[in-house]
């Protein structure tokens, strides 16, 4: 294991490499805290309306494609594990391995988006996009539409985060391969990892709320 205190260069406002790293990590977590509240507002809207219209939400949820959602959950969880190994490779200064693992992570993120895309296409064909063309076989279509409004909003914003993640991770993979930017300087990779794991956590909560409200009837 290389000594992490070798990390260079230390900016003049920091006492040492450890303080510099802690400040960066804290800043990332602060950003993630704002993201928690950003997604939290949508989760709150979902919770409030689901308590108000439980049957409409259950009926609407049964029209979602659980095979797609479940596969995508597995894809994201695996991508998070690969990202954890990438961060480890960065801390060990294994440039080639880092690039490879980042590339695999980005590819899994892209697979997630492709699957989500097929799912969206299916839902648009079925008339499950809110608006004038919305139609659904449910007792309370108005509030089933409310579920789909939240579904498109929340998965859409999440997919945007995945897209940003895939672009960033691809860029980092290229940097790892082509430059020595992360040589004794793995903090950026560590922070990128935090972002990607956060995106994974959001999906971990979205998955049961969207696909599995009332599957047993």
């Amino acid at each position: 294991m290389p000594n992490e205190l070798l990390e260079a260069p230390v900016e003049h406002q920091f006492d040492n490499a450890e303080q510099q790293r802690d400040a960066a990590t804290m800043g990332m977590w602060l950003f993630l805290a704002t993201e928690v509240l950003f997604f939290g507002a949508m989760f709150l809207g979902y919770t409030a309306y689901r308590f108000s219209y439980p049957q409409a939400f259950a009926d609407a949820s049964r029209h979602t494609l659980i095979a797609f959602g479940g596969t995508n959950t597995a894809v994201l969880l695996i991508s998070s594990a690969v990202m954890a190994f990438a961060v480890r490779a960065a801390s060990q200064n294994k440039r080639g391995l880092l690039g490879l693992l980042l590339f695999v992570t980005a590819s899994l993120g892209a697979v997630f988006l492709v699957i989500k895309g097929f799912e969206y296409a299916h839902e648009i064909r079925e008339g499950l996009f809110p608006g004038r063309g919305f139609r659904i076989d449910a007792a309370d279509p108005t509030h089933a539409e409310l579920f789909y409004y939240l579904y498109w909003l929340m998965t859409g914003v999440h997919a945007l985060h995945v897209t940003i993640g895939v672009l960033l991770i691809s860029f980092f993979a290229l940097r790892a391969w082509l430059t020595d930017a992360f040589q004794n300087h793995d903090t950026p990779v560590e922070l990128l990892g935090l972002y990607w794991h956060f995106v994974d956590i959001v999906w971990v909560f979205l998955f049961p709320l969207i696909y599995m409200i009332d599957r047993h009837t």
Partner: protein
Amino acid sequence: MNAPTARTYLINGVALLGFLALTIAAAYINLGPLNTIVAMSISAAKAALIILFFMHMRYSKPVMWLFVGAGFFWLGIMLVLAMSDYLSRGWH
């Protein structure tokens, strides 16, 4: 920071996929109102595993716990205060 071992990451990844299988299986069993509670508990457990091991919180300083906890604490305030309004509107 003591970096976790590759073995830790591997076990964590497998545990997460196990939880995923568990949450899907549980959804097809009729537990009444418990279904949602079980699903959200499993999600919380998955999130805890990701935060503790993949995001290295298990190996971080107390001040980092404060930063992470603050985000979720504020989320808790938002959810609890707002839902205490929605859930009590029907009370007379």
